[in-house]
């Protein structure tokens, strides 16, 4: 038992994650061609605009499910919506936010773009703390809009006219998944600007704009889009009851900041917070790079409920960063 635990603690989670990401990408982008059906309430961007998708991302089900009148909401259709939401939560709970870090095809795409950036020796950008605090609100704003706009299309808020029907599935119209994921099946049909009326012109232009910003942003910042993703905001609401957990034992933390330095999203709280036990913040995508980079024993742990499955260990840290490999003969070093 100890041997298995040591093996896991010394292992290179990033390489394991890289492989899982490739498999998940193939599943969620091409799975439909192999008649795989995963579900309609997926906590990841399996876009239905892509013909090969094995399921549907929950956001589109949510937007369609909320496109109902108030009276329908308190009737059977509202019940159907809540059942859908419950299915989503059940899908989500087991892997918690590691859906973002391990399985999301858009996330994987951003990681690949990051690899391209490394080849060009370009430096990555980070947000300073003030911008970080301000910009992270955007994903909650998007989530609120996703709830309000479909309801506003079927109902009238405060006597105002109904929102135009062309705003149907508003987030899908601006989501980069809709334009980019079908490209992997050779389908360029989502790259258009719709000139029918001002609403469609604006929405489709926003969609193309967001796609362009997605590429520019994720080239310069690691996991750029994840910071603004409403799916991340929605998942965070249920993150506390997740089965997979990331916990911190503040007593063992020396505040060296290694975890913050390797974090793709740039969460400072992992390093600074020494009192909370559950350290999953709303931007965290549970990629576990922080656990890999922590040189203290049992400071950051990955748990299934309360059982540790992967901990930060001294030995694992030194092995992963190749610090044990470098020890040339001292005479040779002196002569160089």
């Amino acid at each position, binding site marked *: 038992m100890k041997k298995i635990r040591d093996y896991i603690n010394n292992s290179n989670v990033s390489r394991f994650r890289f492989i899982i990401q490739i498999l998940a990408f193939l599943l969620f982008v091409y799975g439909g061609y192999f008649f795989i059906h995963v579900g309609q309430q997926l906590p990841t961007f399996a876009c239905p605009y892509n013909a090969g998708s094995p399921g549907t991302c929950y956001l589109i089900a949510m937007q369609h499910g909320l496109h109902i009148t108030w009276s329908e909401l308190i009737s059977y259709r509202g019940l159907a919506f809540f059942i859908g939401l419950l299915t989503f939560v059940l899908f989500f709970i087991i892997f918690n936010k590691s859906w973002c870090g391990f399985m999301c095809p858009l996330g994987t795409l951003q990681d690949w773009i990051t690899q391209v950036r490394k080849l060009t020796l370009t430096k990555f950008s980070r947000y300073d703390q003030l911008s970080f605090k301000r910009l992270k609100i955007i994903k909650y704003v998007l989530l609120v809009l996703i709830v309000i706009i479909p309801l506003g299309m079927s109902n009238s808020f405060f006597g105002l006219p109904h929102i135009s029907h062309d705003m149907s599935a508003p987030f899908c119209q601006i989501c980069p998944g809709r334009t980019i994921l079908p490209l992997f099946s050779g389908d360029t049909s989502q790259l258009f600007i719709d000139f029918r009326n001002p609403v469609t012109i604006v929405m*489709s232009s926003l969609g193309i704009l967001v796609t*362009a910003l997605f590429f520019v942003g994720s080239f310069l910042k690691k996991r750029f889009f994840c910071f603004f993703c409403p799916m991340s905001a929605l998942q965070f609401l249920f993150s506390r009851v997740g089965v997979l957990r990331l916990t911190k034992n503040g007593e063992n933390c020396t505040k060296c900041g290694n975890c913050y330095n390797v974090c793709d999203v740039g969460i400072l709280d992992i390093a600074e917070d020494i009192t909370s036990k559950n350290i999953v913040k709303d931007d965290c995508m549970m990629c576990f790079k922080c656990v890999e980079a922590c040189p203290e024993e049992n400071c950051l742990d990955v748990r299934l409920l309360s059982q540790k499955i992967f901990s930060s260990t001294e030995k694992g840290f030194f092995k992963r960063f190749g610090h044990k490999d470098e020890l040339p003969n001292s005479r040779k070093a002196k002569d160089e």
Partner: protein
Amino acid sequence: MNSLFSRLNIKTIGIHFFSVFIIYFFFIQTLGAQNNIWFSNMPPDDDQQSAPSGMHGLSSVKGKRGTSSVIQWLREGTHPLNSKYIKLSDTDNYEFYLYSPTGKDSVGEFKRGYLKYCSKEEGYYNGYLIQRYVSSDTLYVNIAKAEMLNHSCRNGHKNEGKKIGPDIYPKSIPAEIIRERTLSEDFHYFALSGDVINYQFIVDGMPVENAKLTFNTQTGWQKVLTTDKSGKASFQILQDYFSSWQELNYRIVYDYVIFGDITLAQTGKYIDKNYSYVHYTTSLSDGYRPARTMYMSMFWAFVVFMITIIISVVGIFLYKFNRNKKYKEIHFDEKD
């Protein structure tokens, strides 16, 4: 000149006119008696209750508990816009059938001038109204067919290929036109202008050759084709008029109706009259939308994409250049 006029005897002219008139009168009689009846999705102007709903834009009324009933009106004529709305009383001689996608019959009713049913199953509902009468040794069988697609994404997309049909009911329906499904068709199908649609004329369950199929569009344009050996004929929908932007805005649907005619030698007796020929007239009505290329532009999408990339890259370079040059100071404003 004078000789010409002297030749033209008023009497001859009068006889010519009279004979033409008599023949025309009979023609009109026979034409009138042929009764081009068809089911239309468009409500008469005085109907305020119905509204288009669902993915296929079928006219419907809302019922209790979120159910809705589909309505299709019975009309007579060949022009989709100008045809009369006819009401049949209970004393009129007609047969009405309505089949659900799984073949259940009598799932709806026909009264006054329209058919009505509650759509519960996913797939195509088929409604038929048959009128028969005998005139000058020929039995005229006029069949109005309505093929209505019911689908909601909430119910999933499993096995759409199997449910798509088309289904025929030769036991009760002697003649019908079916629209052939394309290979990749699913429940989200809607004809677009520019599409090629294949129709097949079926009598007593078998395709017939040399039947006449007439395609009528909203502007009055007609195309007549004859079916080949396998009873098929292909029409390509033309964009026969170009609407204003306003019309494109309202998700406009252009209606069309197809009539099929064939006369077959068959003897029999209907009520108390004998006949040696049967003339089948059957109809099918649907709508098409303007082709996406009418209002969607990939070129402009590319322009927006490139502009966004250029602006964001230049913006980022300038920002970094400024930051590298001088330290960004904290600013205070003079507001009280």
